[in-house]
């Protein structure tokens, strides 16, 4: 198992697009937070970071989709399963390695944003919601990873994840309160605990984990049973 995780980490580390995504996410976090902190008068540094979380979701989503889809764009998936024929081990190894990568990316991005916002806008609010934002970003990445594993292709997974996370929620939220059950709205309870009409932090986390369980369960079932 340790070998499988290490192998998957090496694959992620040596995938240029994945490294570029991680770096790009951190840079975008710093840049966007700087713009928000500079443009809104009297905004707290923490609030500036939280304001850019929705667009930042693109980073973890792309990371998750790329890491899976790169296996299926050629014959790498077959090589992987030849090297690690036990599919449970391969799946757990890949998921663990991805969690390491996406957690590092999310934490680094939120930290970079916070540092820039503190320099630009100052502020003394407790930075604990930023940790919640990092957790939210990592979980969103995991959801996209599961979706890509289920669909085994880059474009459908990317369009599906970005549409569900970025395009649909604002539209639905304007017409129905049930938009709070969507993954990004539910997860936002992790970093916006006091916003009205959303779920309590614990419930929001549970709903997001529920989404991941359903999509991830289907993906795992498909990965274990389907021809490679």
């Amino acid at each position, binding site marked *: 198992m340790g070998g499988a995780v290490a192998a998957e980490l090496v694959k992620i580390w040596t995938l240029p697009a994945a490294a570029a995504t991680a770096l790009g996410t951190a840079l975008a976090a710093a840049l966007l937070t700087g713009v928000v902190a500079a443009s809104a008068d009297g905004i707290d540094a923490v609030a500036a970071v939280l304001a850019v979380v929705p667009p930042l979701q*693109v980073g973890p989503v792309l990371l998750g989709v790329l890491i899976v889809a790169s296996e299926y764009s050629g014959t790498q998936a077959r090589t992987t399963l030849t090297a690690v024929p036990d599919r449970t081990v391969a799946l757990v190894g890949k998921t663990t390695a991805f969690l390491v990568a996406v957690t590092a990316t999310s934490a680094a991005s939120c930290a970079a944003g916070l540092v820039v916002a503190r320099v630009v806008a100052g502020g003394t609010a407790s930075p604990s919601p930023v940790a919640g934002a990092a957790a939210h970003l990592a979980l969103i990445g995991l959801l996209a990873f599961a979706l890509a594993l289920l669909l085994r292709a880059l474009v459908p997974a990317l369009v599906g994840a970005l549409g569900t996370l970025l395009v649909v929620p604002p539209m639905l939220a304007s017409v129905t309160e049930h938009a709070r059950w969507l993954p990004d709205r539910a997860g936002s309870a992790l970093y916006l605990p006091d916003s009205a009409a959303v779920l309590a932090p614990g419930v929001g986390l549970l709903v997001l984990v529920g989404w991941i369980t359903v999509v991830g369960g289907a993906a795992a079932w498909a990965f274990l049973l389907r021809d490679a």
Partner: protein
Amino acid sequence: MKATDTVLAELRKSATLPATAVAAGIAVLGCAGIALLNAVHVRDAPAAGRADLVGYTAPAEAVFSAAPLGAVGAVVLGVTAVSSEYAINSPGAGGGRQVLATLTAIPRRPELLVAKALVVALLVAATAAVALPVSLAIVHAVAGPVAADGLLARSVGAGIYWMLTALMAMAVTVFARGGVLPLIVLITNSSLVSVSVLLAKVTPLAFWLPDLAGMRLFAGDLVVGADRALDAPTGGLVMAAWTAALLAAAAAVLVRRDA
């Protein structure tokens, strides 16, 4: 091949892509679904004494607030029309790219780009011609008569907005020679947290960016920032100018670069 053959060949290639069906599905079903939700909301909110919770009560807004979803469909259509050419085939089948066959059949590259642009515009127009009337009919049936005032102009405007969006997506994909980057940039920018909207908070120059310039083609007064946006004719022309410039740049790149 004659020019019409080129267009027909491109039409057949684009129309038979699974992604094109998905894109049309997003635009038609997405718009109809959001329009239905909006219409139910517009109908029920005043009766429930919660009119304060609705941003608008006019049935027409129920149709056009779904238009950004059609733009997402247009982006998918425009991007995949080009990115499918550059997608690498399965190594078991030679690992080739369709673009080599395309350029062998149609060596005149500007003609190829014009044909592709025509096909993308045609497919988006066909999608809009289904999506918007269906949405209008749904809203009409659920929330009552839609005011005819400016309806035709806004419907045509939404169709033009989608078409220009798809053409810009196509041009950007010619630069990128792959679907990932254009899809991310353009879908993210179709959402309400778009980079252009963020920039508009810093500088009014952001209203000259392609997506915000054209927003008054369909968006009513209630959309955030609509009061500061360019008016429909000016904005539409600005957006069309962006599209023309991007397509010209795409043609230059396509002609000069190795496939």
